[in-house]
């Protein structure tokens, strides 16, 4: 059975109260949800809290899911939880992300790793809307329509936030002199 069909079955069963089916959905989305929360909140513990809260909300509100993209619906809950979490905490100066938690492998190239760190640091310079747009579109691979649904805003707003977020990131990397030619991707980004 294809993954999409399996997901539809799991959603239907979970709506009837089957928690094991819901946990299969959780397993399919938890990495994506955690990464999104981590990039939006820039704090590992807060990201964990937001994720757990999101899946609990999803379980409670699953009956309200009317169909469409479950991924967008789930990520919308995650973004809203992150927004709530960010409102709760006191405004602070953007801090460096816990890089150790982001490293996938210790054998990762040092320069590449440093560059990733700087990119994530640059993300923290964006406001929540811009960061959401960049993360959802460029990192999570959502379409404009899905990103608009997740962010609960019009399509044009997503485009403008994505554009300004990318420009701010570019300026940040240029200022940090972190755009050397050896790190340019070989394939065109389109």
């Amino acid at each position: 059975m294809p993954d999409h069909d399996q997901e539809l079955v799991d959603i239907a069963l979970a709506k009837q109260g089957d928690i094991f089916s819901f946990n299969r959905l959780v397993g399919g989305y938890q990495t994506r949800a955690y990464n999104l929360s981590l990039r939006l909140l820039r704090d590992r513990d807060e990201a964990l809290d937001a994720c757990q809260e999101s899946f609990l909300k999803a379980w409670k509100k699953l009956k309200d899911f009317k169909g469409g993209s479950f991924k967008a619906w789930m990520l919308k809950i995650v973004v809203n939880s992150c927004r709530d979490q960010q409102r709760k905490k006191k405004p602070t100066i953007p801090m460096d992300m816990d890089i150790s938690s982001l490293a996938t492998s210790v054998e990762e190239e040092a320069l590449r790793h440093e560059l990733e760190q700087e990119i994530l640091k640059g993300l923290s310079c964006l406001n929540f809307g811009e960061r959401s747009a960049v993360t959802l579109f460029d990192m999570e691979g959502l379409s404009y329509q899905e990103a608009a649904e997740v962010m609960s805003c019009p399509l044009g707003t997503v485009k403008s936030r994505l554009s300004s977020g990318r420009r701010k990131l570019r300026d940040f990397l240029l200022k940090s002199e972190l755009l050397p030619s050896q790190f340019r991707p070989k394939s065109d980004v389109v």
Partner: protein
Amino acid sequence: MWFRKKGCSWVERVLSEYLNHNLSPEDMERVGHHLTQCQRCREDYEHLKLTVGLVRSVPSVPAPRSFAIQPIPQVPQADRKPLRTLLLRPVALSAVAVLALSLFYVIPENSKEGHPTSDEMMVVNPGAEDMAPLEATPLFEVELSSSRAEKPGTPTLESLAVGEIAPPHPTPLLSEGMEVSPPTHPLPSRPALGPGDKVPERVDVCAPHLCLPCIGRIA
């Protein structure tokens, strides 16, 4: 010059869309043409493309733990205890413990620290223990009603006289200069005494309720 400036700002605004191929074919061609003509916009485009490529290349990290929801085991209704009962149990136990402590420790401690016991309260006059025990010699005889006399612990006139029991409400003593009003109740009749008659020992008073005028008469 004006056209070039407007073209640059417009291109800069739509560069992100151009990267995503999200413009109309005409606009795509217009931007592409502009980029071949304008060095500054071309550099901007290259930097933006590189930035987006780097952002997309950031790997995702695995979730440190599972977020699966644990199913709550269903407890049979009969085995469930109300939450209030469970919460009040330690309170009730504490209250019992405090009461027990009060009974066994607090009250005896208080008696040692100056609170007179019932035995100590019997001694009205301090230092009376050293003296010889007084005989309960009645100063006068009264007729007490049986109901009052039978009640244990009720102060009698005899006990009042010898000072064995402190009266709960001290009867006002008659002092000099105090005017004694006539009794407000009819006194019991007694025979008139003639010369040479012996004064009877028995004095009729209004006992058991000894009023102030009668006390004056006794005195």
